[in-house]
């Protein structure tokens, strides 16, 4: 016997939810560092090709963000900071997020390969796969070293920008890669210290959850020292001029000082962690200032 069942389709996701999947705020920093890597390269690139390269970096980052949200919907639902994202918020089905992420990633790599060059496309592919497979799928739920190794994913954009402009990789973009790679742990651990209850509730083994606050504070200071070296060393090596050198020296010294204050702090209440919040806020500004100085240096000095 056949019974008539009334069926109501789900509402299609709003286009703004697809935009939210790309993590636009994270993308801002990715696009900025990619653009700066491109502008710091010692060659002239046609603006249309340069725009295409930056667009591909943005689309690749968006694809990584979408696939990250697709895989982590269960974790996002348990964290206050992320529970209103499109998937845990119930505004989109998982399959749409998966198709969107894969489609966007493939498109960004193909466009980069066809319009810009193969090396930039290869590094873009590596960055997407690194973020999705190595960081999101493999490391994040397993080890407190998740963002140390996963930080490489966010360090690729200046390398991609440089490769897009020149067609090869040189020492300066490798040092910029090292800078962002070493910047990531202090940046994320400062955040993790004052949102620790959120990570603990979600079962994510972030360092403050697994090793405690004091060990995390010590690691923040330890990572900020080689980060400062990676930031300043292009100047004595003759890869940049004095503008970048002075800005890098002063801002890195301030970063290390803030990290030192975090190390000395013994605050246990996340609501009162002023030193950690100050370091987190400054860490974002730090990268913007440093990469901006690099471009200004390249444009103003002979």
């Amino acid at each position: 016997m056949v019974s008539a069942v009334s069926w109501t389709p789900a509402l299609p996701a709003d286009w703004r939810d697809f935009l939210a999947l790309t993590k636009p705020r994270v993308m801002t920093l990715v696009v900025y560092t990619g653009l700066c890597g491109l502008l710091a390269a010692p060659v002239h690139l046609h603006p249309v090709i340069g725009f295409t390269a930056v667009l591909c970096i943005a689309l690749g980052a968006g694809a990584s963000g979408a696939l990250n949200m697709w895989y982590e919907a269960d974790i996002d639902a348990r964290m206050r900071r992320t529970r209103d994202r499109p998937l845990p918020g119930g505004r989109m089905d998982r399959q749409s997020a998966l198709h969107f992420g894969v489609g966007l990633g493939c498109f960004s790599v193909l466009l980069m390969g066809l319009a810009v060059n193969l090396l930039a496309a290869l590094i873009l592919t590596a960055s997407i796969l690194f973020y999705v497979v190595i960081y999101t799928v493999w490391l994040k739920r397993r080890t407190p070293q998740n963002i140390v190794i996963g930080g490489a994913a966010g360090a690729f954009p200046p390398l991609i920008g440089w490769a897009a402009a020149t067609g090869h990789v040189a020492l300066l973009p490798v040092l910029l890669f090292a800078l962002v790679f070493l910047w990531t742990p202090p940046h994320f651990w400062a955040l993790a210290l004052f949102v620790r209850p959120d990570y603990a509730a979600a079962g994510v083994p972030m360092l403050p959850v697994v090793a405690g606050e004091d060990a995390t504070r010590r690691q923040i200071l330890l990572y900020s020292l080689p980060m400062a070296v990676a930031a300043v060393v292009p100047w004595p090596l003759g890869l940049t001029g004095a503008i970048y050198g002075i800005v890098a020296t002063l801002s890195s010294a301030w970063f290390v000082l803030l990290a030192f204050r975090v190390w000395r702090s013994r605050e246990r209440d996340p609501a009162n962690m002023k030193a950690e919040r100050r370091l987190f806020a400054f860490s974002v500004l730090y990268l913007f200032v440093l990469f901006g100085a690099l471009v200004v240096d390249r444009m103003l000095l002979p």
Partner: protein
Amino acid sequence: MTPDFEAEYRRRQRARAKVMAWILAALVVLFFAIAIVRLSS
């Protein structure tokens, strides 16, 4: 499907179609520009 639900359904479909149309139009312009640059270099 209630009338309100159907109206919201259609509104979202239209909004997505419009965004997609703008994106495709932008890509047409971009691909044309890339082709011109590549052919002239």
